[in-house]
């Protein structure tokens, strides 16, 4: 009967994208460390 997919550690009702903090296919914890960010060249 499959599984309760809300128990896999992903906030499926989130208004934010999940991939920014997607830790790994094995963990139900959000990613540690800096999420992906890009600083425009002109900030340097």
């Amino acid at each position, binding site marked *: 009967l499959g599984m309760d997919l809300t128990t896999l550690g992903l906030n499926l009702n989130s208004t934010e994208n999940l991939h*920014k903090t997607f830790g790994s296919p094995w963990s139900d914890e959000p990613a540690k460390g800096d999420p992906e960010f890009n600083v425009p060249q002109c900030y340097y």
Partner: protein
Amino acid sequence: DLDAADFREQASKLFEKWCELPSTDDAACPDYILQLHQNGLLKGDEITDRFFRLLTEISVAHCLSSEGINSSAMQSPQQVQSMSFLAIDIYGKLVSSILKYCPVELGSSKFFLLSKILAVTVRFIQKDAEERKGSFNPRPYFRLFINFLPDLSSLEPVVDGANFQILIAFANAFHALQPLKVPAFSFAWLELVSHRTFMPKLLTVNAQKGWPYIQRLLVDLLQFLEPFLRNAEMGQPVNFLYKGTVRVLLVLLHDFPEFLCDYHLTFCDVIPPSCIQMRNIILSAFPRNMRLPDPSTPNLKIDLLPEIREPPRILSEVDAALKINQMKTDVDEYLKTRQQGSLFLTELKQRLLLLPSDAAFAGTRYNVPLINSLVLYVGMQAIQQLQARSPNSQSTGNSALWPEFSLGASLDIYMTLILDLDTEGRYLFLNAVANQLRYPNNHTHYFSFILLYLFAKSNQEIIQEQITRVLLERLIVNKPHPWGLLITFIELIKNPRYNFWNRSFIRCAPEIEKLFESVARSCG
């Protein structure tokens, strides 16, 4: 022209020198890279291959030698030992520095060098996995790609085109390292493919041009899993990989639903029929700008929904399997002439069967992708005809068209299949139809209509039972449930035309009777 020993000696010395450079001192980098370039090590020729192969070997060996317990002893997942990634990280930094400071003109040469380095890395992993088999350790290579991905995929933050090329180079590398080719790398592979510095980028840069690459990688994974998922019982490693796959599909469902929508046919070809929930995730996807009416809304008029007339976008090649199996011409011929008594219909069942040798490997006697392709292709032709014949009609499937509609060649094909196929074949055919019950579009509407029409017209109870089963087994699994599936089932059990509640099979066993009572309650 250096012989192997000298070359190894020289490469090791150069790597040691790189290791001694203070990691913060960015000033020394360009000089060091220039020296490599002047030594002729960065031309992208055979010497370059040997150089990077050696550095890979040295850094991986250092990493493995640092591991606590001997990696050949079978360990439990919890027992995985720590290992030092120092050499791997330093080698990763060398590669990103080379690509950053290498004195070549921008664009192609840098990208050419990256492709060479990735090719060397892929071949090295494939060879190591072949030689070590069960004692192959994927973690050093995982770490190496974790170094490469963020550094190299943002090499030229300004030049988006270069970025896209680099992401494609990684996609090709991962395709070459797919689980069917390097099964011992499967877990690391899925984590890299779904990594937040790779998959989302390739799905967003360059206006969806990266989609085919991610689709191909997902198919690589599902093809590997398919034989192990046919049986409901899975061992722990397969279950773990399956669960990881479901997580990745949920991220795609949430963030990139259009991607799952547009390739649903391809994914249904490689997901075994027993993976009902996994397939439901794909089929439940709908465009983010669409609002789905609640299927249990009383007197919901599907025909009047604006989206119901629109065709869904399909990026899979619908008639590919028909062409491969030399069926497309005959199908088109029949749809056009509808020649009575033609051999096409009588031979149809036979042509959907696999050769016995293929059947054994495929775990079924039928060519599932061919059935999927035939059902969808034939339906699309019918929809086109219906809309051409009555351009202003509100929808493709309202019952007013039943008499005229029932003359359609497409329906001949469906009726032939539902009556000629054996139980297994009919199940796969009904699955192919049910796979089109998705979000509001004219395919969902047409195929919902087909399923209900077959229920009403085929006067064999076993067929009605099987149609019910195909719908029910998709509804009793945990969520998500595709919108089109729900509205079809509700129509079946509510519309007196189908006389559903008088069918004997809903009382074929006490638990089935209870199941339908609960269904009746939940559907009001």
